[in-house]
């Protein structure tokens, strides 16, 4: 497999004058946990970190995301063990919160038919940079929702939710994660707000070129070894899909069955995880891209052997990075526990800032948050003893 040249492909690379400059200001980590949300603020030079008091303590917060078009705004998707799903919005970076007037919900089914029910809002994506107030949400079970008023009222995207193939694409309720089937990785092409991708566990990767009115599977070349069909069109299990804003015709995914890269002009996923050390394997959940280098990607491998422990292989946690789009990988474990550390990092729980050098952060299901301010060369534990971490996102350009 050859490495595509990311410097000369003028058809797919956003002009270099769009290349973002590294941020130098203060940043924060938005930490969503099984029992509330937290904001971890970085001090000068990303040094001293200060943890907020719990936000909505006890609520299951699946995702908390800053609006890059309005950096003081945060949305979070949450529910409780008893209460149904909703979305909260803060316009003052977490000081006060307002609940959505109409949270994501499927339409009421006709009398005598069984309708779908949103169990939780799993994923939030701010809309295109030119579309102030637009947000997208992915639910469990798989549903796509859009808000055009900053997250106050939500409507189902009928082009997906009512698509005649939707049920076939997603399979049954058992065809998902242990925590329920999910729609995630809602990606908007920075060149065109009508061009989108979604990932579904289960279901696979899908593409829309008309703002969600219709969808097509995009899984060619990707293995689904849990299905009896050798090369299925859909039914795959992408854990995390990423699109590089500087090279939007390149996608990466950490899949249930390995690490992949797709060049759109080729149209076939290539298993770049085959280049990972065989003893470690290429199973995992999150995947993180370098904000300014489409060839640099971090993953955090999990044990996907036997009964799928989903813990760090051999009890020795490490991130791996590639700087050549997946041809070679390097282990990054300095500062992490050397052994007896059975960490799990979920698909939304690893992220990067846009500083120079890039900061990489991840949260674990046992409630620790780790960070590296030198692109993974050395890790420090930033805070511990939180509840089970579901998601970690970076917030920048803060006041």
């Amino acid at each position, binding site marked *: 497999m050859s490495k595509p040249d990311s410097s000369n492909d003028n058809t797919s690379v956003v002009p270099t004058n769009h290349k973002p400059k590294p941020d130098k200001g203060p940043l924060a980590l938005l930490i969503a946990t099984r029992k509330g949300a937290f904001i971890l603020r970085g001090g000068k030079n990303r040094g001293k970190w200060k943890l907020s008091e719990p936000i909505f303590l006890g609520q299951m917060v699946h995702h908390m995301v800053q609006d890059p078009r309005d950096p003081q705004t945060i949305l979070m998707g949450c529910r409780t063990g008893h209460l*149904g799903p909703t979305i909260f919005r803060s316009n003052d970076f977490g000081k006060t919160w307002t609940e959505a007037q109409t949270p994501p919900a499927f*339409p009421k089914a006709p009398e005598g038919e069984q309708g779908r*029910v949103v169990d939780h809002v799993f994923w939030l994506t701010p809309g295109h940079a030119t579309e102030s107030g637009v947000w997208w949400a992915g639910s469990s079970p798989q549903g796509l929702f859009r808000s055009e008023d900053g997250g106050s009222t939500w409507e189902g995207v009928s082009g997906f939710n009512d698509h005649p193939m939707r049920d076939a694409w997603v399979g049954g309720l058992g065809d998902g994660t242990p925590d329920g089937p999910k729609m995630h990785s809602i990606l908007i092409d920075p060149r065109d707000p009508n061009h989108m991708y979604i990932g579904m566990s289960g279901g696979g990767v899908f593409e829309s070129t008309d703002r969600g009115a219709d969808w097509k599977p995009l899984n060619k070349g990707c293995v689904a070894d849990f299905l009896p069909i050798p090369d299925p069109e859909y039914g795959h299990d992408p854990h995390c899909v990423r699109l590089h804003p500087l090279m939007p015709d390149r996608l990466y995914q950490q899949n249930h069955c390995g690490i992949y890269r797709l060049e759109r002009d080729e149209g076939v996923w290539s298993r770049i995880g085959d280049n990972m050390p065989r003893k470690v394997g290429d199973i995992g959940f999150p995947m993180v891209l370098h904000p300014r280098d489409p060839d640099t990607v971090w993953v955090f491998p999990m044990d996907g052997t036997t009964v799928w422990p989903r813990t760090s292989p051999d009890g020795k946690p490490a991130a791996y990075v590639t700087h050549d789009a997946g041809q070679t990988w390097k282990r990054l474990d300095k500062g992490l526990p050397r052994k007896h550390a059975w960490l799990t990092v979920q698909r939304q729980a690893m992220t990067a800032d846009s500083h120079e050098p890039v900061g990489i952060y991840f949260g674990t299901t046992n409630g620790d948050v780790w960070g590296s301010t030198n692109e993974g060369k050395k890790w420090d534990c930033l805070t511990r003893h939180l509840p089970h971490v579901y998601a970690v996102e970076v917030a920048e350009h803060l006041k």
Partner: protein
Amino acid sequence: MKVYVPSALRSYTGQRDEVEASGASLDELLRELDQRYPGFRFRIIDEQGSIRPHIKIFVNHDQVRDLTGRLRAEDEVSILLALSGG
């Protein structure tokens, strides 16, 4: 009529554990409460009109699973959190 509000829903009712509401049915009563306390209903009733799995609603001493049953002015409605662990 009197409605008992569990702790998880008191952020909607200004921390009141008991509120007055009216309605010819539980459905009407919950819609009225939702008018006064926006968001209240959807946290306990899903989009298909079913009581959520870990919520129980009693009218007097009887558990109710259907929102359409008639209510009388002297009834007492209790919204309860079902047992759960973890």
